[in-house]
């Protein structure tokens, strides 16, 4: 039990962020018209590619003196996958939204 209390106290900043982010997500989505659900889902999907930062940290600090290690290979894949998610996600969202934009000009 005490372990839990310590854990909570040590990570309280993070826990605050988590709880408030949950409300933020609910609040932002509740106001979106269903017309935009697909681009929104796609955009949110691109943001979930934020794992790329973890990938960069990991690959960036991978020990290279051991030559081609498993960690190096996995790290490279993590960064490639993460970037695919981010870049692909944003580009495809942009493409979807182009269609809404076109109409406005007319």
């Amino acid at each position: 039990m005490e372990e839990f209390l310590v854990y909570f106290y040590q990570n309280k900043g993070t826990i605050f962020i988590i709880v408030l982010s949950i409300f933020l997500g609910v609040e932002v989505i509740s106001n979106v018209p269903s017309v935009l659900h697909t681009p929104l889902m796609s955009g949110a999907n691109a943001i979930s590619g934020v794992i790329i930062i973890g990938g960069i940290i990991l690959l960036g600090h991978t020990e290279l003196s051991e030559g081609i290690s498993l960690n190096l290979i996995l790290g490279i894949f993590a960064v490639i996958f993460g970037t695919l998610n981010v870049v692909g996600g944003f580009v495809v969202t942009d493409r979807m939204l182009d269609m809404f934009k076109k109409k406005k000009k007319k």
Partner: protein
Amino acid sequence: MNITLQDLGITSGDVILEISYLVAAVLFVYGLKLMSHPETAKKGNLWAAAGMGLAMVTTLFLHRDADGKTIGMTNALIVVAAIAVGSIAGAVIARRIKMTAMPQLVSFFNATGGAASALVALMEYSNPDNSSALVTLLGLVIGTIAFSGSMIAYGKLDGKVGDIFAGWVKYFNLFLLLVITVLIVYMLAFDLDPGLQTTLSYVLLVLALIYGIMFVMPIGGADMPVVISLLNSLTGIAAAMAGFIYNNEAMILGGIFVGSAGAILTLLMCKAMNRSLLNVIVGSFGGGGAAAGKEQGTVKEISLSDASVLLSYSQKVVIVPGYGLAVAQAQYVCNDLVKLLEDKGVEVKFAIHPVAGRMPGHMNVLLAEADVPYTKLVEMDDINPDMPNTDVTIVVGANDVVNPAALDDPSSPIYGMPIIRAHESKNIIVMKRGMGKGYAGIENFLFFDDKTRMLFGNAKDTLQALVSEIKEL
């Protein structure tokens, strides 16, 4: 008393890095917020992308590991090369894909995000500096499930993977989930030898892979959008778990934000189908066995010329688009028909069911592609009261979303799902390729209605023929 950065053991670079994360987090939220309106949506997407780009660049240049070292030149080059590969591949795939394949693509990108999270967690688990084993293992499991689940969803939407509707899958999944939970508890509770720990983390990876596959496998039919949204939410949570490992607020906020947004979107979709999330996950749609006993009656066809006359002399026409429209790439011809009818003074509207197509808002995107103004797209709840005043309802490639069994047949698997009340309009024209069942595999009694006439054929060809027929009138 002045505290210097040196007293805190940090450099100004560390502070700049944290500030950039703060800016990135704000841009994520601001961007998604802007996306809640069609006019600002594009800008919002760009802001969110800018936030991501900023965080990536500052991490590359300023991040320091536990020993205080920044990323070395060789490592940085490898990172940049990997980013270049991912960026080019991502941009090319996203640019080339057809609009109809959009749901698959989102699912595929979601899978890559899940895979990245799982890989990061897998490697961090064997890192002795990492003190949050629970979060790491959860990140590993959730990321892996998001990956394999999304790949299956991708395969299903692309028609490469079939459904499994076996009763045992349910129990198998529950059992698997239990095994995963027990394994995690075991790995946390005992001080295991590092070699064994690593082995077990791979076992966990494999179990989670299987779970993701088996979790999506039995889910079919109209439930696919819900699953994609749910998996999207999982990827966000997995990214946040990784953020916890690195104490990285931008990752935590971005991940949890997307996780909760995805979760609420999932629930909104379930609500649109009047089903609980549990029901979607556990009680998958089977074949339409329940309603099969009823008499089918006969369907009546309509000729193109009759259809064109009927439409031209109507006052109000409602078009109900479905996945068939997307498959046939008929959105452009559809818009031609709308323009033609409007020139004749007919009022035309599109009725959009929240789960029409394979993703929420799928129809909106498709029709927007064909230049249909979004003011013409009316949501289900707004158009339903108007249906009895509608002269002709044209159902183009839609099926389950207009099936009256959802209203009056308690034995039907889709009973209780709100539908577009096409059957209340004065005439109904159904464009269909054949008498096949809808994605949910249920017989549709709308087709046997006295007021219903069928136009068989590929939606695009049929619409094209209809357009030229009306032009000649």
